[in-house]
């Protein structure tokens, strides 16, 4: 346990998550992600991939063990601090989580508005993010008039726009065609190059294999194999 923690961004110490139903979504997980790392999370349906990501973003709290993000022990984080923690962790969801009564622009701007950013800066950043996912033309439309893949990309833009140091993605390419998937992965790689730490849950084994990055495989709530474990 006596390693250099300066560069550790995400750290799980023997973490378990037991849901109120009694089901254990995760059991005894030890994990470390260094700053600037990019890792994939794979495993069967129900393996616990989403659960692991949700613990990092504090959408759930661990029932045992400790989760550290950016040197903060999430167990000890007060309720008042949770929003500020979430601003440092961008998350892309399996089910997009867009607001259907706001335009694409306003959806993407949300993390910046919430953080109290100025108007001009918001404009600039949102446009840049939408451009990156190829949806600049659609900034004024509402999410209902977007295809599934387009909604997915709006969700990705929203996670990118505030340039969080940590980016979590839950099957970001599940609804995208192979070409778009590759483009989005390119984008993630670019982000990784400027120092963002990424953890991506995916079923796309081919893509994972092709990129040759660290792969953490979950099986029934436990880490089955981890190609980049430092232990």
């Amino acid at each position, binding site marked *: 346990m006596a390693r250099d923690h300066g560069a550790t961004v995400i750290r799980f110490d023997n973490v378990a998550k037991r849901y109120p139903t009694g089901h254990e979504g995760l059991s005894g997980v030890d994990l470390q992600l260094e700053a600037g790392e990019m890792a994939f999370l794979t495993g069967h349906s129900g393996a616990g991939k989403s659960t692991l990501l949700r613990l990092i973003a504090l959408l759930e709290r661990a029932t045992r063990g400790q989760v550290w993000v950016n*040197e903060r022990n999430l167990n000890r984080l007060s309720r008042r601090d949770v929003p*500020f923690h979430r*601003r440092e962790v961008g998350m892309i969801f399996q089910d997009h989580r867009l607001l259907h009564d706001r335009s694409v622009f306003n959806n993407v701007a949300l993390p910046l508005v*919430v*953080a109290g950013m100025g108007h001009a800066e918001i404009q600039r950043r949102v446009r840049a993010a939408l451009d990156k996912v190829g949806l600049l033309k659609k900034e004024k439309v509402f999410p209902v008039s977007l295809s599934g893949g387009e909604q997915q990309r709006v969700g990705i833009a929203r996670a990118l726009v505030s340039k969080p140091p940590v980016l979590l993605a839950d099957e970001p390419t599940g609804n995208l065609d192979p070409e778009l998937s590759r483009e989005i992965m390119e984008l993630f790689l670019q982000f990784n190059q400027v120092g963002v730490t990424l953890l991506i849950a995916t079923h796309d084994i081919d893509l994972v294999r092709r990129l040759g990055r660290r792969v953490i495989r979950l099986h029934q709530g436990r880490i089955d194999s981890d190609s980049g474990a430092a232990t």
Partner: protein
Amino acid sequence: MNGRKRPPSFRRNRNPLTWLLRHAQMALSALGRLSRSPLGTLMTAAVIGIALALPGGLHLLVDNVRGLSTTWQGAASISLFLADDVDDVQAERVRQLVDQRADVAETRLISRADALDEFRRLSGFGEAVDLIDENPLPPVVLVRPVESSTESEAVARIAAELQAYREIELAQVDLKWVQRLAAITATIERGTLILAVMLAGAVLLIIGNTIRLEIQNRQHEIEVMKLVGGTHAFIRRPFLYEGIWHGLFGATIAVLLIVGSLYLLDDSVQRLAGLYASDFALDLADPLGLAGILIGGPLLGLGGAWLAVSRHLSRIEPQ
């Protein structure tokens, strides 16, 4: 644990100008959101308006009834009708005599002329009273017993003792019409109190209920806000502004309803006021009261929103 350094604390934006600007923006965008569902906004405002107008109107009514009855407040509980042959000087002596009793707190003499005047004024006979050649009313002494002797038996005992005086023809415990007026006033006051309590309850319930349903409606929005790092204060703010707007619109409708009702009631009231001359005029147009509604409405809206939001907001956590 192993001597880790204190984790960095989160940066918080506390620029007061930004803060003010954001609030103004939020107030406007809340208004914008309401204006996008005009029917719903109008319905909610109308319900609040009616609920506010009723206690407002009742308040005026109760005030007026009180105004009517103060004339009789502290009225005597024993009336001494003096003998027909007692003149006003003798009557005053009787009053002083009675006033010296230890169990009597206060006395007041109503001379024959005063009695007729009062009768003319209150009975409504008006000029017709002047047809009566001679004043048939005797002088009356009103007696208020001391506090400790106000139970009916004590009062009845005093009345019986006073009856023994030669000059006193009849010692009547309480004038019937004073009792009646007091009873009517008490009934109306109690009734309006019950109504006011029910209506105040209704206002709170309506605002609370509306905001509860609104919050449920926007559960998804709240979840997403929390997901991207919105603080409780930030998420609560639009609801508070909506509460304020709802309250303001409701108050405006309430004022319109009250003024409209006054207009509809105006001629009846005018007639009444004319009939009672200066004695009893409904003082309905109360600009202070209306201003109170216009200020109180938004405050009530804010309060209701605060309660409802605080209760429900923390329960909604992103899945």
